[in-house]
């Protein structure tokens, strides 16, 4: 299982090398076996005798973070979708992207995504899950911006990044709180302590943080706005990330944690309301779109809302329907995206106003699209899987209970109505997509390319998906026992045994709702010209994109203003800010912790020679600040340096004294060499305020150092380690001079780096002088 998760990642590293030979073989062919093998691997687990599996590798044991992969029914369903659709998408992309594109980038990002998505659905450790979660956001960002020279791609990529990463942070907050409350990092461990979590003080925060993470990722209202812009990605990516897998990560998260929340009314209320609003709003928006992929994007959003709502309902039937719909949606929506990509590829346009009458040119694509759109619309035919889950959705919407309260009761009444409204629009845009593209008038002059059928191999992936639609539709119970039931069990936390039936009888209320949807949908579609102006007016200017754009713009302009306020380019200002921060923070810390210690003890006796040297140094140091003449300033600085050397001599540091003498001499010489080229010191014509600040900051810093020095000198909490060096100088270092032995032996590596620093400085100096010569030579 670990290999399955990491195989794509390992290949992502190899891909750039493989893509070197892309002119002979399309990179896609070389790496196609990877997802296929993963798919076959996970296929072994499918069956009515399914058993969970787990595999653990320690990662950060001290933080209780391990790569803990746990495969249950839900994970298995997702893993199969990820690897299965991944295989088809890679195959499809071989024909979609030609060899001139930067295939290396594309497949690297795609495989990073595949690994991380598998990681998300298989991790039992919340922090590992979070890590993979962010990786999916990152790879999605890279893939949306794949055609980075397009303005819109960059905009869409940034938007998806900002929104999903916001959710990612919130998820991190949620899992940290969960870990603190339960003391475990394992999801299963948390589910066992569901009562503890529900009764915790932080429960509300946990719930909101997790919901925010799920809603942003799964494009729920009002965070859905990133998904339509993500359609700038190449179509294989849209089919894969933005309809079949990544956007379902939020659904997965909710499904995974629903055993904890299922008894909480708030969870039911939030998820149902947001899910249904998303369903209705996005399906209405989908009708308005003129871009094929844009319409499909809103359709994805609305279907995600529907699944979210079903998870919110939380009844065993609803959970079962939700899981079933995850599978169904992946099949029909994946095939529709691929067909949309084919249309785009072969005609050069995705604008539904320009398309039409393509049935005659692209019969196979059209046939595939019929199955996809009709299944999405929920047309009651026994070979369309979309109908089954749609009807189960209605049934679960009608069969709600177990909660009390006036608000919840009115909500329960409203749910079926919103469900029907949303589904009517779903029906309308499905019809719109199919008939608008493939039927009607053929507008030759509008299309950049003469349409013709796609190459056969490009049709294979959507064809396989459509076959999936039909097989699931014809033999739903085969999938039910082998896969769906296990997934639903994992979500519901208890046995969910359901038979999927096609025919419930005329008097079944869910079937009647389906009929209403179909009838109203057909009516709305046939009279579509009358509604056009309404679609154009609502929502008009009211748009969440505006809110997003406004926020991004504000954040940019405000942060720009703040930055320019202090990043003036004046070094003096920077130094003052840094020093003031040091002074206030350190002094503050000392004040708060009451760290002063002025008890003077164990002092060396005061003797005249040292005091004299010290006074000379002090006077010289002050002298540097007032010196007008550059030679004077440099010589005074020399006085300080030599004074320090004398102090070293006095205080038993002969090595230091020697070094200091040599260095000080060289430095003064260097100064004198350089100053010849530099202008003389000017008088300070600064304002009083400037001078005052300078004096204040420097004195403040000096006093701070004084306080620290005295306090540190008097606070000795531990024995010095110097004795070790003195005692072992000869035994371990083979020398008598402890300072030398420390430098070359005990702390030899430090000295090595010191030499490296000098070397760097020398290189820099050399470069600066050399550059001047080159310029002079010109």
């Amino acid at each position, binding site marked *: 299982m670990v290999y399955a998760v990491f195989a794509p990642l390992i290949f992502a590293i190899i891909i750039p090398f493989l893509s070197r030979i892309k002119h002979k073989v399309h990179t896609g062919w070389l790496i196609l076996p990877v997802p296929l093998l993963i798919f076959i691997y996970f296929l072994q687990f499918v069956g009515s005798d399914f058993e969970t599996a787990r595999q653990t590798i320690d990662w950060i044991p001290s933080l209780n973070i391990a790569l803990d992969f746990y495969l249950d029914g839900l994970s298995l369903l997702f893993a199969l979708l990820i690897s299965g659709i991944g295989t088809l998408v890679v195959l499809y992309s071989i024909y979609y992207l030609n060899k001139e594109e930067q295939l290396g980038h594309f497949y690297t990002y795609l495989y990073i995504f595949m690994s991380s998505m598998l990681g998300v659905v298989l991790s039992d450790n919340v922090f590992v899950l979070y890590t993979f979660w962010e990786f999916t956001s990152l790879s999605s960002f890279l893939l949306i911006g794949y055609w980075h020279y397009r303005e819109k791609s960059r905009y869409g990529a940034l938007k998806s990044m900002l929104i999903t990463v916001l959710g990612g942070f919130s998820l991190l907050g949620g899992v940290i709180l969960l870990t603190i409350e339960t003391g475990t990092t394992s999801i299963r461990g948390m589910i066992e302590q569901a009562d503890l979590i529900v009764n915790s003080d932080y429960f509300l925060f946990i719930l909101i943080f997790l919901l925010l993470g799920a809603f942003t990722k799964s494009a729920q209202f009002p965070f859905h706005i990133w998904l339509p812009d993500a359609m700038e990605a190449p179509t294989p990516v849209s089919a894969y990330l933005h309809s079949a897998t990544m956007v379902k990560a939020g659904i997965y998260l909710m499904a995974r944690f629903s055993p904890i929340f299922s008894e909480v009314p708030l969870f039911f209320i939030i998820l149902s309301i947001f899910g249904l609003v998303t369903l209705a709003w996005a399906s209405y928006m989908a009708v308005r779109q003129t871009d094929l992929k844009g319409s499909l994007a809103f359709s994805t959003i609305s279907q995600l809302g529907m699944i979210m709502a079903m998870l919110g309902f939380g009844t065993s039937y609803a959970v079962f329907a939700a899981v079933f719909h995850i599978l169904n949606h992946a099949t029909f929506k994946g095939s529709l995206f691929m067909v949309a990509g084919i249309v785009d590829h072969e005609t050069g346009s995705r604008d539904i106003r320009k398309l039409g009458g393509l049935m005659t040119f692209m019969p196979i694509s059209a046939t595939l699209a019929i199955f996809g759109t009709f299944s999405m619309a929920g047309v009651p035919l026994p070979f369309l899987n979309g109908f089954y889950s749609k009807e189960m959705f209605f049934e679960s919407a009608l069969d709600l209970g177990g909660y009390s309260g006036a608000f919840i009761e009115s909500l329960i009444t409203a749910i079926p109505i919103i469900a029907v409204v949303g589904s009517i629009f779903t029906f309308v845009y499905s019809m719109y997509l199919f008939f608008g593209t493939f039927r009607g008038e053929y507008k030759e002059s509008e299309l950049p390319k003469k349409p013709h059928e796609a190459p056969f191999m490009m049709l294979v992936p959507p064809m396989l998906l459509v076959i999936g639609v039909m097989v699931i539709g014809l033999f739903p119970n085969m999938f039910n026992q082998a896969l769906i039931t296990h997934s639903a069990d994992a979500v519901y936390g208890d046995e969910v045994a359901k038979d999927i039936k096609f025919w419930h009888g005329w008097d079944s209320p869910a079937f009647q709702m389906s009929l209403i949807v179909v009838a109203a949908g057909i009516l709305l579609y046939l009279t579509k010209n009358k509604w056009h102006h309404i679609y154009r007016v609502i929502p008009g200017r009211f748009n969440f994109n505006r809110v997003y754009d406004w926020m991004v713009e504000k954040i940019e302009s405000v942060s720009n203003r703040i930055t320019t306020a202090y990043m003036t380019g*004046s070094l003096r200002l920077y130094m003052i800010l840094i020093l003031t921060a040091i002074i206030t923070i350190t002094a503050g810390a000392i004040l708060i912790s009451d760290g002063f210690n002025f008890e003077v003890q164990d002092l060396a006796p005061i003797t005249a020679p040292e005091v004299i040297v010290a006074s000379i140094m002090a006077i010289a140091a002050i002298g540097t600040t007032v010196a007008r003449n550059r030679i004077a300033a440099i010589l005074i600085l020399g006085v300080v340096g030599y004074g320090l050397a004398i102090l070293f001599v006095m205080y038993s540091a002969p090595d230091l004294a020697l070094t200091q003498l040599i260095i000080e001499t060289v430095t003064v010489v260097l100064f004198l060499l350089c100053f010849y080229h530099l202008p003389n010191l000017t008088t300070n014509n600064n304002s009083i305020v400037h001078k005052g600040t300078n004096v204040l900051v420097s004195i403040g810093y000096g006093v701070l150092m004084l306080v620290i020095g005295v306090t540190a000198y008097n606070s000795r909490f531990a024995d010095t380690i110097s004795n070790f060096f003195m005692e072992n100088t000869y035994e371990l270092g083979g020398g008598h001079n402890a300072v030398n032995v420390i430098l070359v032996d005990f702390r030899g590596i430090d000295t090595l780096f010191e030499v490296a620093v000098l070397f760097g400085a020398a290189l820099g100096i050399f470069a600066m002088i050399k550059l001047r010569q080159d310029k002079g030579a010109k």
Partner: protein
Amino acid sequence: MEIIMIVLASILFTTGVYNLLQKQFLRIIIGTALISHGAHLFILTMGKLKRGAPPVEDYGVSNYADPLPQALILTSIVISFGVTSFLLVLAYRTYKLNNTDNMEKLRGLNNE
């Protein structure tokens, strides 16, 4: 005696920082040199000041001066020398290229 030395180190810090806040490149370099002198003295003082007991083993005394601060200072002296000389050449180059050693005028370009 240690108190006097700490006071001296503080004076070195104060004057160093004051020089650092000036406009002229040369003064800034002087400032950094003063600060490193101050730091060396500071570290030496922290290790207790002892006269006539250099940390050489067979000197015949039992109470040596602390060798560790000395080793640290030795490293630091050399490094601050490297930094000072680098800054000097940098100042020289800057002046040659821009004809000014006033840091307020050397602000870089906007929208870099």
